[in-house]
């Protein structure tokens, strides 16, 4: 059963050409980064927040610079949350572009075939056409799937930052 799916998978890549591998690589990077961010927010960040709150409660800071210190702490945690987010965004932007690249290289293939064997042989062009369409579709799918979770991630970062602000304000 798995063999059949695996076979389909590889023939899909064969038809998509080299650009499809690039799309696949981008998709892997994108999802690895997204998963890493979610893991960070749900596990490591909680630990970090707890440590910070402990430190604030145990220390007494110069009252003159209370606002500044609060700003510093929030900014620092925000920066930690946002690490890699812009890279994720870029990957999402690049995905359709790579798909477009696939379209164009596929069309070049089609026209090469046309120049050699004439316009009458439609079957021989099919290879180029599938090379043009499959990466485009794959690029779109990857970008759309990424955009959904990226927006959710942004929201959760904003929520976490706001919550931290409130919590620090209570103590400091």
């Amino acid at each position, binding site marked *: 059963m798995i063999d059949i799916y695996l076979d389909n998978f590889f023939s899909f890549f064969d038809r998509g050409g080299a650009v499809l591998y690039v799309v696949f690589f981008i998709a892997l990077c994108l999802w690895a980064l997204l998963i890493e961010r979610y893991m960070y927010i749900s596990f490591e960040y909680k630990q970090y927040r707890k440590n910070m709150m402990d430190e604030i409660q145990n*220390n*007494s*800071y*110069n009252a*003159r*610079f209370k606002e*500044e*210190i*609060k*700003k*510093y*702490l929030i*900014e*620092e945690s925000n*920066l930690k949350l946002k690490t890699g987010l*812009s*890279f994720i*965004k*870029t990957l999402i*932007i*690049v995905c359709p*572009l*790579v798909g*477009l*690249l696939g379209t*164009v*290289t596929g*069309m*070049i293939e089609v*026209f090469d075939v*046309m*120049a*050699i064997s*004439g*316009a009458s042989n439609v079957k021989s062009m099919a290879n180029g056409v599938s090379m043009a369409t499959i990466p485009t579709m794959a690029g779109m799918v990857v970008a759309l799937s990424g955009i959904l979770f990226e927006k959710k991630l942004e929201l959760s970062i904003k929520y976490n930052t706001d919550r931290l602000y409130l919590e620090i304000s209570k103590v400091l």
Partner: protein
Amino acid sequence: MKLVVGLLLSVYSLFALNLETLLGSVEASSKQEIVQESKRLQEFIDNKQKQKQLLIQTKEALKRENQITKELKVVIEKNEKILAKKEAELAVKVGDLGEMFGSVRQTSSDFLTNYKRAFTASQFPQKEAIFDKFSDSKKLPTIEELTLFWHTMLDEIVQSGKVSQYPAQVVMQSGEKVEQTVTRVGQFAAFSDGNFLQYSSDIDALVELSTQPASSFQGGAEDFEQSSDEVLNVLVDPTRGTLFEMLGNNPTIMDRINQGGIIGYIILLLGGLGIAFAGYKMVMLNILDKAIKKQLKDVTKYSVDNPLGKIASVFYNNLKDSITDLEIKIGEAILKETNHIKKGQSFVKLLAAVTPLLGLLGTVTGMIATFQAITLFGTGDPKLMAGGISTALITTVLGLVTAIPLLFAYTYIASKSEEMVSILEEQSIGMLAKNLKQND
């Protein structure tokens, strides 16, 4: 005579002619002539009898010849009859064999056209003469010749299924003719020293392909030449050279770039500029980042060789001021530093945005060229349109290929500088203040 008279006349006319002397001499000469004529006439009359005799002789000869002709005609008729009989006999005897000779000629000329294009022709050039003889000959071939014919054909079939090594004339790319050891794989490929060859029937020699297949295939061919009985993979052309020929038509990357035209060059130029600038910016930001990170470890021991250190020095030197004064002073220092960090960042972004647009421009100009070709020549020849279309597609590819790395570079630069600016702008005062308390 007339000439003499003329001459005399002219001589006399030159020297105030004496007409009378002239008249005298003319009369004298005409008299002489009359005497001669009468003599000739006498001669004719004398000869008349002789002439008659000659005529009789000649008539007799003619009669004899006519007699001979008649006799010979009878012989010819007889011979012709015999010939017709013999021919009929031959036709009966040849029977179906006549057809066979026709098909021998046909087969051998067909075989010759194939053989002329085949790699085996380079190994056995003498075979061509044999087939040539059969296809041209008007004579009936003998049994021996017929046997030779089908033996040669059979030999050709056997040879075309073999992998063999033999010395042959090879025309190099430089044009010189060299004798080299050639390895031939059936009718599908031939190579020597890893270079793939093609058989040219025009010059009866193997010619080095002007565009060789990828170097990995050439290496494979070289291994194949040196091995004896191992099983090895080697590149062959099942279409007997057509695909190898097409290899020469296949555009290289340089050809492709040239197809992009002037817009393609502009895109590449901008792309190169953008990548170079982004690289410079990345190195610079990393150096600054390292200095700031080093300073972050301990802000109390500040040094003024990095942005954070400079801000720290302003902070510590003006600690006694009121909070607003201090903030203004620090703000000034921060502005100077962040400006330095952010500089040039938008240039990379601009280039990343402009190159796909230029690609689009190229697409449109290429399509315009294509449609011009269509209005001039119609859609009959796809090759006429191909020029414009390839410009259109290549510029798009170039635009995308330069834009994608530029986008990544911009992301890197932007996030790095954003991080640093955030450290300087938002965090620096708080960080310094936090440490201040602990020091007290």
